[in-house]
């Protein structure tokens, strides 16, 4: 699993699902960084993508939607 973590992070994955215990993803990732096989710069880039979206959609300014019905579609 550790190498799968490295491979996906290096490829460009930002967020991993499912929601699993830390030993599935984040602990191996920390080891990889300590070993030097994944660069901290790479992690910074992956986190930056997530934060950019959060800022863009205003989640830090308005954490709750005011019009929930707007998310409904007729598809």
């Amino acid at each position: 699993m550790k190498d799968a973590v490295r491979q996906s992070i290096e490829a460009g994955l930002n967020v991993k699902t499912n929601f699993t215990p830390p030993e599935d993803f984040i602990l191996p990732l920390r080891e990889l960084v300590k070993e030097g096989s994944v660069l901290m710069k790479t992690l910074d880039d992956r986190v930056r993508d997530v934060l950019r979206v959060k800022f863009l959609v205003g989640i830090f300014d308005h954490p709750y939607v005011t019009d929930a019905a707007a998310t409904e579609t007729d598809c």
Partner: protein
Amino acid sequence: MGHTWDRGTRAARSAASPASKAAHWAIPIFMRRRWTSRATNAGAAWKIRTAKILPGVTTRRGDGPWAAAGLYRRRDCQTLCRLQRRQRSAKEKARTDPQVSPREVENILLPPFKAAIKEAGLLGVMSSYNDYDSIPVTGSSYWLTERLRKDFGFRGYVVSDSAAVGISLQETWRGCRHEGRRATVD
């Protein structure tokens, strides 16, 4: 037929079709080729025959213009896809490996995603379980970085699909093959 999210196009198609319901089942073209055209795909016919003999699984032919054209309705496709996954899961841990030509990928499947990113400013993407050219998409820098970000200009985040990081990158022989290739290249 392609696939579209444009409601105007779909509405126009529904109005033009004698069976308006049929127009609603916009089937991605790669699914149609693999799963729904009996006349042109022996593999699909095999799946259908297999479906009939498995307990608890029934496949239903549609009625109306789809059936006349030898096509299956979307929910039938879904039944077949589920069946295929079930069969695979016993042997290969639920892999999905669509066979699509590069020409179809570039000219038919990618343009709507490219438009959604470039024109609509899409900010979230889920990477697929699928392989492309035998490399799992969830571990593919070609798709997640070269194409998605550099080519399409995507500026959002990519989230993996369910257990794709474990399943598609590690637990199958394909992962091993990719890693073997990587090791060779490195």
